[in-house]
């Protein structure tokens, strides 16, 4: 283990690798800042540039882009309510509210700090026991994944806070919209009206840009609330109190993110949503979530980064990508003539350990780069909104077009921009809709697969112990608030242990 670590750092710490790691992190951050372009696109687009590199250098740079792009997406989520990818949707909930209150710098700082600690924790777990976790993850078949999706749905509903019915309705609508397109099980096209653009479904990134970026612009124009911030530079920095409040959420978020990120394909998208939902329940400030609570940024951002690292668990240990971006990275392995698979650790120790050492480096670079930059980025909000929002519209539409070079995407953004505005006016929550849209295809796939395995019988869901346990957890979460409320009605004083709980 130690000699492996030494080997890894020797491999990663060459000037060339350090340089490209830095370039990757920086380029990734810039790409992540562009609406619509997340880590998957970033890695895929810059992949051809690395063909001529040494394999280790190429992968180190691509991993840097992966991390950088995620952080870039966080910056736009916080500052202009435009999530770069699915994982940062929840960051907008509190991060953007913080920015509107002049605490954007603090939100960005805690995202960087939380991500860093999550990365270090998950890296240690990755180095120490990737194969073990990967084997365990194989026990997650379609029924277990289906149970996780249902658990995810239950978590969504809790986002909506007081109006659960609205959250539920929007989540259902999201899943429903996700049904548009070709059904994988039969090849049947559904709800497409013979439009080829709809055959692959309504893409969630475009929907996200429409709802969050364009919808928010329209809403701000109407409400007139978006004024440039007037805070001094010093006030944009994070305070000690905010740091202290974030310690426990970062720890919880990292653990949740790591566990979900180990599951190939299904869990990692949900990591930040889960972490937010859990934090909202266990944190004593849970009620403040959605109005600009720093815990609501710290938890999902840590979870997201932990999941990003944990995605490498199945990728490196089994050759099965953990998520969309690691799938593209696997393509990069093959382009470099490296066969990913269970023997990768034995066959290419220098590469694997060098890569893991570079994850560490990349995260250090990201922290060093972004801690001073966070307040500087927050300065952007000094720009008068009258200049700002036309630019947001411009980049949103260009970003949407560049996702698939298809003008249809631009129309989706336009339509969902209008829908997003309407939803805001009518107090319909948008995060459940987006999560429904993301979960929908996964839900349907695992439902179809479970039914295929059971030959039409779905009882596997309750006969396999692991899926039964997850389902029980989901049901527990669903009815817990009602039970708690009933208990609370007794004349006892406020249950004191809830306040003392933060260190979980």
């Amino acid at each position, binding site marked *: 283990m130690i000699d492996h670590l030494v080997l890894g750092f020797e491999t990663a710490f060459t000037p060339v690798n350090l340089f490209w790691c830095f370039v990757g992190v920086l380029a990734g951050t810039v790409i992540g800042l562009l609406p619509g372009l997340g880590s998957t696109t970033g890695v895929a687009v810059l992949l051809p540039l690395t063909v001529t590199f040494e394999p280790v250098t190429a992968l180190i740079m691509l991993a840097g882009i992966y991390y950088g792009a995620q952080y870039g997406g966080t910056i736009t989520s916080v500052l202009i309510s435009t999530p770069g990818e699915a994982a940062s949707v929840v960051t907008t909930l509190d991060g953007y509210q913080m920015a509107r209150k002049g605490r954007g710098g603090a939100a960005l700082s805690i995202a960087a700090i939380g991500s860093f600690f999550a990365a270090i924790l998950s890296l240690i777990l990755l180095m120490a026991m990737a194969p073990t976790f990967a084997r365990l993850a194989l026990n997650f078949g379609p029924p277990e994944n289906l149970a996780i999706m249902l658990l995810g749905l239950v978590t969504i509903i809790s986002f909506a806070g007081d109006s659960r*019915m609205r959250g539920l*309705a929007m989540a259902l609508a999201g899943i429903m919209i996700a049904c548009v397109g070709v059904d994988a099980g039969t090849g049947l096209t559904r709800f497409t009206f013979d439009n080829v653009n709809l055959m692959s479904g309504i893409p969630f990134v475009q929907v996200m840009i429409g709802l969050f970026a364009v919808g928010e612009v329209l809403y701000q124009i109407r409400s007139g609330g978006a004024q440039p911030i007037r805070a001094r530079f010093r006030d944009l920095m994070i305070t000690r109190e905010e740091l202290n409040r974030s310690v426990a959420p970062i720890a919880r978020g990292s653990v949740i993110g790591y566990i979900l990120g180990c599951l190939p394909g299904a869990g990692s998208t949900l990591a930040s949503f889960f972490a937010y939902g859990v934090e909202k329940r266990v944190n004593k400030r849970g009620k403040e979530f959605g109005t600009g609570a720093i815990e609501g940024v710290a938890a999902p951002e840590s979870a997201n980064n932990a999941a990003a690292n944990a995605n490498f668990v199945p990728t490196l240990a089994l050759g099965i990508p953990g998520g969309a971006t690691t799938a593209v990275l696997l393509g990069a392995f093959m382009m470099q003539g490296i066969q990913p698979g269970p023997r990768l650790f034995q066959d290419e120790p220098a590469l694997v350990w060098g890569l893991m050492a570079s994850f560490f480096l990349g995260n250090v670079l990201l922290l060093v780069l972004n801690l001073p930059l966070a307040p500087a980025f927050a300065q952007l909000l000094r720009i008068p909104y009258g200049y700002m929002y036309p630019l947001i519209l411009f980049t949103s539409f260009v970003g949407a077009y560049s996702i698939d070079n298809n003008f249809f995407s631009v129309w989706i953004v336009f339509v969902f921009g209008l829908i997003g505005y309407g939803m805001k006016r009518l107090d319909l929550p948008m995060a459940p809709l987006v999560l429904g849209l993301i979960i929908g295809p996964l839900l349907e796939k695992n*439902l179809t697969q479970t039914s295929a395995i059971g030959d*039409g019988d779905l009882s596997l869901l309750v006969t396999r112990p692991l899926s039964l346990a997850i389902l029980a957890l989901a049901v527990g979460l669903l009815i817990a608030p009602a039970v708690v409320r009933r208990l609370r009605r007794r004349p006892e004083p406020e249950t004191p242990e809830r306040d003392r709980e933060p260190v979980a």
Partner: protein
Amino acid sequence: MRVSANVRELATWAVIGALGAAFAVGGLGYGLSKEGGQVGPGLLPALTGGLLLLTALAQVVRTLLGSATPPESGETVVAAEEDLDGRTTWQRTRILWTVFGLTLVALLLVSLLGFLAAFGLLVLVISVAVERRPVVPALVISGVAVAAVYAIFVLFLRVPLPGGVFGIGGEAG
């Protein structure tokens, strides 16, 4: 005020319910199961559509019975009667729909002028004509924006932006 809030609430849920019903019917048409009794292509849309319809109906009933208070609309809190530019709510609503219309025009102009020109103009027109910002800074900002987008998207990321009939900053359509 109270009545109109209820009406708005009812209309919202009627639309949502109708949407759910449409997907449910469509889903039934695609078939709930396929041969062998396995989950078919219509099951999920029918299920979620049906549940959405039920949720909407429940909300309608609760609103009519007065047991569901429509959420306090956030805007009454956020929206100052007059913002810092001294605009009233009515003026801001007009601006909103002007921006919306201008964006639509810009989208339609893309096939004629190309992406960059159409949106460069949109930025300029909004900041000068709608937001009443001074012309020179607005020109500079829209110019810089177009240049930055061109550099990043067209030159660096090689995105083939539509160039309109003149092929400005992209391929000619």
